[in-house]
């Protein structure tokens, strides 16, 4: 076996599943092999905050035993890593923040629980922008993550560690969260597949909240098929989350076979305005042409309020985050300032020293837009514009099945390039934010290159149209091999 196991990391999740069930290798062998990459490549890229090697090997042994006794779960023995925003019992859950540097969660998030119950093995927790606030992974207290395609570049964010780990073939799959594009944008910038399901499709229980009405858990993988495998397990009703939807979960893997022929794809004109990098535009246009050649019908749709989505988001998300992060006060968990002279001092210093600059800015923005005298002008107005943006999407989905376009305006950018002005960083999410505001599912898949850097194609669907997105992505991946290309340095 040893001869064959040295390339195990290049397999997709589906291929690993076949290998495990066919007895080509064991879960223990697979886990050992991948853990070695976590320790080496993972460290080099700064993709991980915690590695759970011992627990992973113990789980792998259990998975092998389960398989031997014919009790293998759906994902038995398959590796997964979690964004460090998901609570994991007995394991550090830092959210990329000094505030939670020593926080050991006493419970598992729903996503963690479901994957574990299906037999998946957690190898570690991935680096991320602090509390998921960022689009470049530079706001992490644990340092920036490097893009495997060019280690001077950012992998995007906030699920940057997850995207880098999958792109570098450390693991085939990683969980992520997406509040304004935090799964899809890093997927685009690292040449991976990233899906953000419909709001309410996956339980938010145990996902440390950034902006509750926008946050949604998803996965980063190398193929649409792998994403479908994981989503089938992750999705579903959870009574512990009031916003979780009690809606049957289809078999996403079985649905992948649906042909592209006849699929109505909407194109948004503004997506191709001057803001989009020309090489990215070319790659996206070619991908659309390839789908059209397969029988998809392309039509132009209008999202008249699209240009207001970024400012709307930067009112709604900070408002919710300012309140969500109030619980970090140095009393029950998290960073506590030393020798506080009074209660005010305990609060202000614990929070002032525990949170990084971007988190503080967003808390303050949110505090401002909710404060007396500004609420109507900012928060309430943003909620109304959010309604307008959602109506635009509703109208569009009355005539098309999916909306396709670029995921991000540019390919990966240099670490440090956009840290000076918050707005230039925020505008990275211009194409992804709309889906969060309207609660829609979105997927980013590799569709070519701008120079040597991968480009992402985004597909957005109506509520609960994950199956259409996955099928379209899968069919595209039957025609193309962009998703099979990885950074050579980590082959």
């Amino acid at each position, binding site marked *: 076996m040893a001869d064959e196991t040295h390339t195990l990391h290049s397999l997709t999740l589906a291929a690993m599943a076949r290998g495990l069930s066919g007895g080509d290798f064991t879960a223990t062998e697979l886990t050992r092999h991948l853990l070695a990459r976590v320790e080496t490549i993972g460290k080099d890229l700064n993709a991980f905050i915690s590695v759970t090697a011992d627990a992973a090997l113990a789980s792998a042994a259990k998975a092998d035993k389960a398989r031997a006794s014919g009790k293998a779960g759906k994902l038995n023995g398959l590796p997964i890593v979690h964004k460090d925003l998901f609570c994991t019992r007995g394991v550090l859950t830092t959210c990329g923040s000094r505030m939670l540097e020593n926080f050991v969660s006493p419970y598992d998030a729903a996503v963690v629980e479901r994957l574990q119950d299906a037999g998946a093995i957690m190898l570690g927790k991935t680096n991320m922008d602090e509390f998921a606030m960022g689009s470049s992974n530079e706001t992490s207290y644990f340092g920036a993550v490097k893009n495997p395609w060019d280690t001077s570049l950012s992998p995007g964010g906030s699920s940057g560690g997850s995207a880098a780990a999958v792109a570098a073939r450390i693991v085939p799959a990683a969980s992520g969260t997406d509040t304004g594009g935090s799964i899809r944008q890093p997927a685009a910038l690292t040449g991976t597949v990233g899906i953000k399901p419909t709001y309410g499709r996956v339980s938010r229980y*145990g996902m440390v*909240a950034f902006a509750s*009405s926008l946050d949604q858990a998803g996965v980063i993988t190398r193929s649409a098929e792998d994403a479908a495998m994981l989503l089938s397990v992750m999705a579903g009703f959870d009574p512990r989350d*009031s916003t979780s939807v009690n809606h049957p979960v289809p078999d996403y893997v079985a649905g992948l076979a649906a042909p592209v022929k006849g699929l109505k794809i909407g194109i948004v004109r503004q997506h191709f305005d001057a803001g989009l990098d020309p090489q990215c535009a070319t790659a996206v246009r070619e991908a659309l042409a390839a789908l059209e050649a397969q029988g998809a019908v392309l039509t132009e749709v209008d999202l008249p309020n699209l240009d207001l989505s970024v400012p709307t988001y930067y009112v709604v998300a900070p*408002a919710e985050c300012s309140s969500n992060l*109030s*619980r970090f006060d140095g009393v029950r968990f998290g960073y506590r300032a030393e020798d506080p002279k009074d209660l005010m001092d305990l609060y202000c210093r614990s929070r002032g020293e525990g949170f990084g600059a971007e988190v503080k800015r967003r808390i303050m923005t949110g505090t401002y837009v909710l*404060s*007396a005298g500004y609420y109507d002008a900012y*928060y309430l107005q943003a909620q109304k514009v959010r309604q307008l943006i959602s109506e635009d999407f509703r109208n569009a989905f009355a005539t098309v099945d999916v909306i396709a376009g670029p995921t991000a305006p540019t390919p990966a950018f240099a670490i440090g390039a956009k840290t000076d002005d918050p707005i230039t960083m925020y505008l990275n999410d211009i194409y992804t934010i709309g889906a969060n505001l309207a609660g829609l599912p979105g997927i980013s898949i590799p569709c070519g290159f701008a120079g040597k850097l991968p480009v992402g194609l985004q597909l957005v669907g109506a509520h609960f149209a994950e199956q259409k997105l996955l099928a379209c992505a899968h069919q595209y991946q039957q025609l193309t091999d962009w998703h099979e290309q990885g950074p050579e340095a980590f082959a």
Partner: protein
Amino acid sequence: MKSGWEVVIGLEIHCQLATRSKIFSGASTAYGADANVQACLVDLGYPGVLPVLNEEVVRMACKFGLAVNASISPRSVFARKNYFYPDLPKGYQISQYELPIVAGGELVIRLDDGSDKRIGITRAHLEEDAGKSVHEGFGQFSGIDLNRAGTPLLEIVSEPDMRSAAEAVAYMRKIHSIVRYLEISDGNMQEGSFRCDANVSVRPAGQQKLGTRTELKNLNSFRFVEKAINFEIARQIELLEDGGKVTQETRLYDSLRDETRPMRSKEEANDYRYFPDPDLLPVEIAADYIEHVRQTLPELPDAKKLRFTDQYGIRPDDAEILIVSRALADYFEMLAGETAATAQIAANWAIGELSAALNRDGLDIEQSRIPPAQLAGLLDRLTDQTISGKIAKEVFEAMWAGEGSADSIIDAKGLRQISDSSAIEAIVAKVIAAHPEQVAEYQSGKDKLIGFFVGQVMKESRGKANPEQVNEILRQKLQES
């Protein structure tokens, strides 16, 4: 109160709902546990956990709304009230702000002069309670216990319709009585299950514009409500008469000094930044649900009072006392149903001897040492004249002390009333013979002496002679002799 001033009072009553688990978590609400053993992940605001609404609090709020003729909102919304305080784990309190579950009710209170007054209820909304801070025993620290955090509260906000501390207390008592009738709260004020904030202002009589108000926080007994408001009224009037101004502020009542003083911790201007809680969806209540809840409403105090005067013919004032507590009213009804005595006698005993004994021993009516059927047995003996009223009280005490039923005590102690006229005649003859001087005085017109003779006969019979017969026979014999 000084003349020339009008007082305006509005109350915000915080009523703890009697659920088993908390409003947004499955932790127990039982009182008196060790610090923080009933504070679960959700109550502590742990990262990643989420609130899920308890169905029982919705039902209870609906019951209250229906009981005070309010409308139940088909759609109500939970908001976050943001502020930092150690007893508030999440840094925000989940409460209802713009769209409360109950809006626009009213109730009627009875004033001292016997007239009725309508008090408007602006709204009632659901919210979570905070924990508590303990300031002693931790050196330079305060200890925080979050067991109470997340306990469901119904905050009942009145219109500023009350014009005296007495009216405020009458209103609070009425609400207290209603929530206990509905069995949505135990109303236990010592444990903080029922407390209120009072908004108090004064204005020159006849002035339309309201004066500047102060808010008196956390008044947890009827007596403190009355005293705190009266102190505050006097303080405000004195301030204004001296040419000063009332500052709008939050004040605490210090029961040891019987005064109110500004709360230091609330001095900083608050900006609560209310916004809809994104973790909770709008609460939708269908019309048929409301109808269903309406079917489960018990008879309420006002209706019960009317029925008691109609059905039992008891005095309205007695009915008013009996209906304050649903348990007392139930006791009365069982008693009246079991005994051959008139309902008025049953009422007298429930309000009189029984309530006095309960008070004396600090017991609730549910803990009465004499169940209604047994007390009925006593009243039966009173009615069939086996014993006199005076002896009945003696028997009652013996029953209270656990000596048995009325009949067994009467027999054991030989307390049966003497109704045999020949026996009474014998005693009367003996008394007349022993007091010739008084007999002479009586016969010369001093009618009042009849009381003396009755007393002597009762004494001679050790209280057992039938007082009516004694009276009758005495008058007759005194005439004759």
